């Protein structure tokens, strides 16, 4: 634990500062003040917006850390949202629906892994194929007039949910929303403090080294990409079941691609991806807030563009410093290059 804190000092200090700010703000202005309400509401919007993005970005992080570029996340989200919703409607249980969403993401992950790892197909093209297949299937088999048997329950984490501002935003929510936090922290830990993480980073950086150390590179890539699919499945399920109660054609609306930007923004670190997604959410939340408050006279479109422009600027300024896992995108062929 102490190690963990030491290694994630920035995040820990940042969290402490934010926490303190929230407490002070609440004490000074009062729980029911406009400013506290507004802050809470925008933060909640940001987090809601960010959840599928965080999950999807983590899919990208796991994939690339293992050496597989996944641009099929969009398709995984779409198909999972579809499967989750319709299975829930057909089975009468949102839980079975969520499970179906997760499994769909996983199966598509396995399919991508099969194409990229087994067949050594170009990874970008495999991802595009995945997206188009998902679009085809979900639009053809879409039927109207179904609805969820019930809402997804909302849970509260005792104690934590009582923290001013942050508590009700992050520690109150559906199972996937709460699970996302667990996944972020878990992945930070797993990637940098476990055997799995060490090996995953090794196969994404220098697979032949891992191979000679006795690690089955392709098997591990296959498993990682497949299991990461569960997170893509969660991103889909959260869209069609937790955050709304319906499926729509094209519902993923570019979130899978945005997640890739977030992954890069986060420099392939799960923790940073979390904050990057939150930042995008904040931008989006602020855009509609400014629209509603009519405070500034900037056309709404420009505010909405801000995150994208900022991403471009940050990427071009930081381009020299962020570097992807060296072997990401490259199929591994045993016995070559060693």
């Amino acid at each position, binding site marked *: 634990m102490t190690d963990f804190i030491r290694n994630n000092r920035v995040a820990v200090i940042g969290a402490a500062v934010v926490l303190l700010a929230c407490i002070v703000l609440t004490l000074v202005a009062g729980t029911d003040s406009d400013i506290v309400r507004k802050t809470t509401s925008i933060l909640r919007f940001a987090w809601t917006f960010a959840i599928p993005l965080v999950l999807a970005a983590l899919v990208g992080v796991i994939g690339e850390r293992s050496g597989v570029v996944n641009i099929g996340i969009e398709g995984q989200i779409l198909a999972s949202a579809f499967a989750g919703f319709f299975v829930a409607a057909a089975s009468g249980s949102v839980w079975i629906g969520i499970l179906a969403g997760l499994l769909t993401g996983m199966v598509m992950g396995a399919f991508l892994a099969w194409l990229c790892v087994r067949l050594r197909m170009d990874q970008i093209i495999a991802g595009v194929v995945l997206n188009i297949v998902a679009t085809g299937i979900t639009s053809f088999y879409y039927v109207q007039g179904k609805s969820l048997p019930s809402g997804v329950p*909302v849970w509260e984490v005792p104690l934590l949910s009582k923290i001013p501002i942050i508590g009700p935003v992050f520690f109150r929510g559906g199972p996937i929303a709460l699970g996302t936090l667990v996944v972020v922290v878990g992945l930070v830990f797993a990637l940098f403090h476990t055997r799995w993480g060490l090996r995953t980073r090794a196969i994404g950086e220098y697979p032949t080294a891992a191979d000679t150390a006795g690690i089955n590179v392709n098997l591990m890539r296959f498993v990682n990409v497949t299991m990461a699919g569960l997170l893509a499945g969660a991103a889909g399920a959260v869209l069609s079941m937790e955050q*709304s109660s319906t499926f729509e054609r094209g*519902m993923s609306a570019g979130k899978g691609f945005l997640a890739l930007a977030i992954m890069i923004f986060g420099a392939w670190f799960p923790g940073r991806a979390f904050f990057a997604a939150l930042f995008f959410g904040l931008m989006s939340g602020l855009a*509609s807030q400014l*629209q509603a408050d009519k405070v500034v006279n900037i056309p709404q479109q420009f505010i909405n563009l801000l995150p994208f422009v900022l991403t471009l600027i940050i990427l071009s300024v930081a381009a020299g410093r962020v570097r992807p896992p060296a072997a990401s995108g490259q199929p591994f062929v045993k016995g070559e290059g060693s």
Partner: protein
Amino acid sequence: GGTAAAPAAECGTADAFCIGLVTDSGKVDDKSFNQSAWEGVQAAVKAIPGSQSKYVETTDTKDYAANIKQFTDKKYNVVVTVGFLMTEATQAAAKANPNVKFIGIDQFQDTAKVGEIANLAGLTFPEDQAGYAAGVLAAKLSKTKVLGQVLGMQIAPVEKFAKGFEAGAKSVASDIKVITVYHPAGDNAFTDPAWGAAEAQKQLDQKADVIFGAGGKTGNGALGQVAKASGAGESIFCIGVDTDQWNTVPEAQKCLVTSAMKLISEGTADQIKAIKGATFKGGNVTGKAGLAEYHAFDSKVPADVKDAVSKVVADLKSGALQTGVKLG
């Protein structure tokens, strides 16, 4: 098109009465205007013996004309085109096919520009009136004096609903606050329920206690979210749009007081019957708009509020009251 109409006489023959419908980029079961229009067609088919119907769903907005042509080629008697965006395609087709009758839903005919087209009825609805009545109701139900609107794309029908709602609310109490948010433009402005839900939650967090969701699936997402709020149906309410959403969005029943409706089905069916009965006039036709039933909320809405709302509805209809909504 996908209908189960019994094999009847060949369209174009004297015994046949064929009705075709072209959707705006969307499906006939979209729980929104396409569906309402199609229900209107079906109601008419039921009422007119020997009639039959078919639809074609538009996937590319550039295909409006081609999709209309499917029906005119087959000598259909009536072609219903749904949505504001098809105005020009419909007018052109109507001019080219004087023997076919057209019903254009949400399509206002600017007679100064296009002249009178006798075989086309441009069916529009006073959305601002429905919105106004809903706004009055919302303002009267609100304890916090904060209302919210979660809207789809900023296009005429949506804007008329929204401005009407705000005007209605302000007519009750000028200090009432209405939080108004349109979906940030994009191809999914009407199909982004997750955004609608998050936006509704934001408005709830900012003390809004009645939320008007108007924008296809995006609005429905907002309604669904309000229904999940604690106090939904007691101190927190939502209002639907277009059709009686009590039936189409069951997950919102917990908060859904009423819906600001435009009676597309009824208007469509009436026009088709008029065509059959040869009483069809063409030109601009104004359909009906108003509030849906209260359903389960009938007992919860105070009688004085109901009375006030009914009076507003009546006054709007008679012209005694103007919404004052102007677009542009």
